[in-house]
C-alpha cells in the first residue's frame, strides 16, 4: 500500500515566511541593546608584510573610543573550521598575509567614531614579497606564507583504486584536458554581523551571529577566548543567506566577544559590503587536469586527476574541500579505475572556503565538459554517454559508497526530453545550442562521529508542539522541514508546531548547515524524537481503542487503528487521557542521530561510504549566443532531480531555482578579480551576479525515490543543484557556436575573441 502523508510532501509556506514579509524577522544587525558599542576593524593594505609596530595611542585618545585591541594582546590560539588545519588568528600576530587581513579592532560609542579611530592607528610594516598564483607559490624559493608549510602547500590528497595505466592502455580514446574555475563570491544579501553581551557575574558571553554553524562557532570562540564552552552561548538570529560563507568564525565574532568581556557592554560588529567581498570567503579558484580513458561505446574505463586549489591566505575548510572535490568524482558515473592527486596552495589573496557545492562544482565542470569533448571525438551522443556511465543503486561501488537509491540515468533522459535534446542538439541554427551536465551530492557525511544532531519534542497541555533543534536555518527552510517532519509523525498540523532552533544555550547539539546534511541528519533526529512522543501516546490510548499500540496511526489530528479509521480518538483527547492517567507532563521525546559510520575515518586510504545518501540530477540548458556582442542568453534550464522524497516540494524548487541563478553567474558573469592581491570589484555593481533580467525559464522535474535512510525518504536538495548548471551552459555554448571553453567564466570578451579566431581559421 502506498504511504500517504498529510504534511510531508506538501507545498507549505515557510514557518517564518510571514515574519520575513512584514519586516519583523530579526537579523543580527537588527538587534540593539542599551549601552551598545560599535566595532570596526583595521585591515592590512599589503598582501604580505611583517608588522613591526602598532601605535594605537591616537585612536585611544579620540573621544568616544572605548577600546582598541591588536593581535599582540589576544591569546596565542589559532582557529579554523577543520581542527587539523587551524592557521588563523582573529587579529594578525606579527604578520599579515593578504590585503584585508585584520590587524586591529576598535570599539566606540558609534560606528562613525570607530571608523575614525581605525584611521588613527599607525602601523609600521615591513613589506614582504608576495605570490598571487599557484604556479608561483609552489616554486622552490617562493615567499613562505605560513612558517613550516613547504611549497606553500598546506594540504595534499592522493586517492587511488584500480589500475589507471592498464585501463588507459585498453581504452579506445584517452583524452587529457585542462580546466580552470574562477573565484566566486557567495554574496549573501545580509552582510556578516555579530553582537556580543557579557554577564560578568556568571562569566558568560552571549554572541548573536550571522552564522551557519552555532556549535562550531561556540567551539572556536571558547578555544580562542580561552574560556569553557559552557560559558559561551551562541545564538543564531535570522541569517540572510550563507551558501557556505558563514561557516567560519570571523574577526567580528571574536572581537565582539572580546570587547564585551573587557568593557562589560554589548558590542556590535557589522561588515560593509566590500568587506564581505574581500575578507570573508570565496569559492576556491581551481586548476584541474583530467585524463580519461573511454571505450569505443563511451564507457569510462579510467580517470586521472591533478588539481591545484588556490586557497588564498588561510586554510578555512581546505582538507574538506579537497576531499569533496576528489570523492565526488566517483559519482554519478561509474569510474572503475581512478587516481586523484590534489593540492591546496596558499597565496597572498582572499581566502577560499566552503561554497555551495564545496570543491565539487570545479571538478564537475571539468568532468562534464570533458565528457562532451570525448563524446564528440568518438561521435557519440553526450546524453547517451551519461546514461551509459550512470552508477546504479544496489551495485557495488568502486569507491565503497553505498548507493541505496539512484535516479541519475532517469534524470538524464527526462532532462533531455524536456529540453528537446533529440530535435535540437546539433540541429539548431548557428548561435543557438543545448547542453547538459550531471551531478551527485552527499546528504551530509558519515565519516565523522561528531557529526550528529539532537532534537527534543515537547507536547504541552494545549496540544502545542515545541521542537528544540540545533539546526541552523539560513533561509533554506530547515525549521520548516523539521516542523513538517514532526507534524507528520504526530499527526498534527504544521500550525501546531513551533521550532526553537540554533541556540547553543537551549537547543541540542547540531553541527549546523553545511554539506547538505540538515534534512537527513537533523530531520532524522526530530523524526525519532517525535516518534518517541507518539509511542507514549499510543501506549496510553491503546486500551481505550482496544488495539495494539503498534497498529495505531496518527494523522490529521486523530489517532486511529490501521484499516479501521472509525475506531479513533482525537489528538487533544488522547493528550487529556494521558494527563488523567497521571502520566507526567509535558510529554517529551528526545533523540540524536548520526549516520552509520566506521571510525576512525579511513576514506583517504580505503574504500568506504561517504554519506548517508546521495542526490542525483541532470541539468540541461538552451542558450542563444549573440555573435555581435558575445553575450549569452540562457533561454531555458531544466533540472531533473532525485532528492528522494521531497519534504516540501516548493522549498526544493526554490533551491533548484536559486542554484540555477548561481550556476549561471559562475558560468557567465562572476569573477572575483584581483590585481596584486587587491580585489578590484568588491561591490554588487562591479561584481554583477544575475538579476531578474538574466534568469531563464526554469523547469524542474522531480524524480521521486524513497530513500531508506532519509526521513520519509528524503535526500539533500540544497547544494547538488549548483554543480551542473555551469557545465550545462558551457556545453550548450559549444553546441551553439562550436567553441570549447574550458575556463570560467565565459565572458562576451572571450566569446568574441573565439569567434574572431574561428573566422581567421576559416571554419
Amino acid at each position, binding site marked *: 500500500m502506498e504511504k500517504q502523508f498529510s504534511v510531508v510532501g506538501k*507545498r507549505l*509556506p*515557510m514557518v*517564518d*515566511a*510571514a*515574519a*520575513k*514579509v*512584514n*519586516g*519583523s*524577522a*530579526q*537579523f543580527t*544587525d*537588527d538587534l*540593539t541593546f542599551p549601552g551598545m558599542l560599535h566595532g570596526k576593524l583595521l585591515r592590512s593594505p599589503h598582501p604580505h608584510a611583517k608588522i613591526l609596530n602598532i601605535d594605537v595611542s591616537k585612536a585611544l585618545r579620540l573621544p568616544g573610543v572605548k577600546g582598541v585591541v591588536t593581535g599582540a594582546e589576544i591569546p596565542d590560539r589559532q582557529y579554523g573550521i577543520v581542527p587539523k588545519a587551524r592557521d588563523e588568528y582573529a587579529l594578525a600576530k606579527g604578520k599579515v598575509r593578504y590585503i584585508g587581513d585584520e590587524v586591529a579592532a576598535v570599539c566606540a560609542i558609534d560606528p562613525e567614531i570607530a571608523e575614525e579611530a581605525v584611521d588613527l592607528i599607525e602601523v609600521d610594516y615591513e613589506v614582504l614579497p608576495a605570490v598571487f598564483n599557484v604556479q608561483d607559490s609552489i616554486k622552490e624559493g617562493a615567499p613562505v606564507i605560513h612558517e613550516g608549510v613547504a611549497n606553500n602547500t598546506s594540504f595534499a590528497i592522493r586517492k587511488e583504486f584500480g589500475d589507471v595505466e592498464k585501463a588507459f592502455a585498453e581504452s579506445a580514446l584517452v583524452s587529457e584536458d585542462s580546466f580552470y574555475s574562477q573565484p566566486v563570491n*557567495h*554574496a*549573501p*544579501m*545580509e*552582510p556578516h554581523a555579530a553582537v556580543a553581551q557579557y554577564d560578568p557575574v556568571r562569566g558568560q558571553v552571549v554572541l548573536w551571529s550571522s552564522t551557519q554553524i552555532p556549535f562550531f562557532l561556540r567551539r572556536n570562540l571558547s578555544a580562542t577566548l580561552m574560556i569553557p564552552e559552557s560559558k559561551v552561548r551562541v545564538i543564531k538570529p*535570522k*541569517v*540572510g*543567506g550563507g*551558501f557556505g560563507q558563514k561557516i567560519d568564525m570571523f574577526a567580528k565574532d571574536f572581537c565582539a566577544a572580546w570587547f564585551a568581556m573587557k568593557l562589560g557592554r554589548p558590542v556590535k560588529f557589522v561588515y*560593509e*559590503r566590500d568587506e564581505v567581498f574581500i575578507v570573508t570567503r570565496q569559492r576556491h579558484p581551481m586548476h584541474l587536469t583530467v585524463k580519461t580513458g573511454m571505450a569505443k561505446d563511451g564507457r569510462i574505463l579510467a580517470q586521472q586527476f591533478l588539481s591545484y586549489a588556490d586557497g588564498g591566505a588561510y586554510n578555512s575548510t581546505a582538507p574538506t574541500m579537497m576531499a569533496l572535490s576528489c570523492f565526488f568524482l566517483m559519482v554519478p558515473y561509474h569510474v572503475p579505475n581512478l587516481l586523484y592527486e590534489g593540492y591546496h596552495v596558499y597565496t597572498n589573496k582572499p581566502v577560499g572556503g566552503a561554497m555551495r557545492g564545496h570543491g565539487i562544482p570545479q571538478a564537475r565542470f571539468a568532468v562534464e565538459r570533458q565528457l562532451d569533448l570525448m563524446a564528440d571525438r568518438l561521435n557519440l551522443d553526450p546524453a547517451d554517454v551519461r546514461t551509459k556511465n550512470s552508477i546504479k543503486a544496489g551495485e557495488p561501488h568502486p569507491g565503497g559508497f553505498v548507493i541505496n537509491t539512484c535516479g541519475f540515468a532517469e534524470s538524464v533522459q527526462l532532462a533531455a526530453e524536456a529540453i528537446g535534446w533529440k530535435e535540437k542538439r546539433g540541429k539548431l541554427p548557428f548561435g543557438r545550442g543545448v547542453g547538459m551536465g550531471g551531478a551527485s551530492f552527499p546528504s551530509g557525511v558519515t565519516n565523522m562521529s561528531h557529526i550528529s544532531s539532537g532534537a527534543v519534542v515537547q507536547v504541552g497541555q494545549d496540544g502545542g508542539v515545541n521542537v528544540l533543534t540545533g539546526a541552523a536555518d*539560513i*533561509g*533554506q*527552510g530547515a525549521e520548516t522541514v523539521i516542523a513538517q517532519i514532526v507534524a507528520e509523525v504526530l499527526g498534527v498540523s504544521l500550525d501546531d508546531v513551533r521550532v526553537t532552533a540554533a541556540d547553543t544555550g537551549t537547543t541540542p547539539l547540531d553541527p549546523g548547515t553545511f554539506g547538505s546534511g540538515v534534512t537527513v541528519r537533523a530531520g532524522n533526529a526530530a523524526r525519532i524524537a517525535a516518534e518517541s512522543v507518539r509511542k507514549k501516546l499510543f501506549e496510553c490510548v491503546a486500551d481505550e481503542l482496544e488495539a495494539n499500540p503498534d497498529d495505531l496511526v496518527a494523522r490529521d489530528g486523530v489517532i486511529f487503528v490501521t484499516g479501521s479509521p472509525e475506531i479513533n480518538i482525537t489528538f487533544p483527547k488522547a493528550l487529556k487521557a494521558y494527563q488523567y492517567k497521571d502520566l507526567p507532563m509535558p510529554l517529551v521525546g528526545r533523540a540524536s542521530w548520526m549516520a552509520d559510520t566506521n571510525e576512525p575515518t579511513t576514506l583517504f586510504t580505503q574504500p568506504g561510504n561517504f554519506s548517508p545518501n546521495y542526490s542525483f540530477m541532470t541539468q540541461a540548458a538552451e542558450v542563444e549566443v549573440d555573435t555581435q556582442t558575445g553575450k549569452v542568453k540562457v533561454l531555458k534550464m531544466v533540472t531533473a532531480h532525485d532528492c528522494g522524497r521531497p519534504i516540501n516540494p*516548493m*522549498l526544493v*524548487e*526554490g533551491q*533548484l*531555482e*536559486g*542554484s*540555477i*541563478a*548561481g550556476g549561471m553567474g559562475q558560468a557567465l558573469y562572476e569573477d572575483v578579480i584581483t590585481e596584486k592581491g587587491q580585489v578590484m570589484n568588491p*561591490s*554588487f*555593481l562591479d561584481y554583477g*551576479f*544575475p*538579476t*531578474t*533580467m538574466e*534568469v531563464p525559464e*526554469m523547469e524542474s522535474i522531480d524524480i521521486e525515490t524513497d530513500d531508506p535512510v532519509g526521513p520519509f525518504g528524503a535526500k539533500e536538495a540544497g547544494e547538488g543543484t549548483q554543480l551542473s548548471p555551469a557545465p550545462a551552459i558551457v556545453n550548450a555554448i559549444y553546441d551553439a557556436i562550436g567553441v570549447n571553453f574550458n575556463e570560467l567564466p565565459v565572458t562576451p570578451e572571450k566569446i568574441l575573441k573565439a569567434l574572431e579566431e574561428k573566422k581567421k581559421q576559416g571554419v
Partner: protein
Amino acid sequence: MKQAIALTVNGDVYEVLISPNQTLLEVLRDKLGLTGTKKGCDLGACGACSVLLDGEAYLSCLMLAVDAVGKEIVTIEGLSEGGDLHPIQKSFVELGGLQCGFCTPGIVMTAKAILDEEPQPTEESVKKKMAGNLCRCTGYKKVIESVMSASGRMGGKQ
C-alpha cells in the same frame, strides 16, 4: 551640527535629531527602530533598502533623511494593516517568493510600487522594474510569480 526634522513614516510623524549627512536608511533603522528596511550594500546597488516616498519606490540608502521631510514615507512595517498581511505579502508567503528574507522587504516594497503604477503588469514589465532588487536565494522565479499572483489577488486594482 545636528538638526531636528519631522518625518512622516507609516502615517505617524516623528521628530528626530539627526546629522545632515545621515541617510534615510540610517534614520529609519537606527533612530526609529524600523529595522525591516535592510542595509545590503549602502551603495544603491541591491534594493534591500527600498521604501515608498509619496507612493514611489526609493532607495533609502541613497537618500538623505533631510530630503524625505514632507513626504509620506511607507516602510515594510507600514504595509500590513492591523497585523493582517497585505495581499502582496500573502502572495510571497504562499508562493515561496522568499527564502532567507533579507531582500524581501525591499522586494515587497518595490512590488507595491510596481502594482500601484501598473495594476496588471506583464511578466516582462515586472522583471524590468524588479531588476534593481537583488536576491541571491530564489533565482527570482517565485518572486516574479508572487508579484503576478498579487496582481490577480488584488483584482488588478491598486
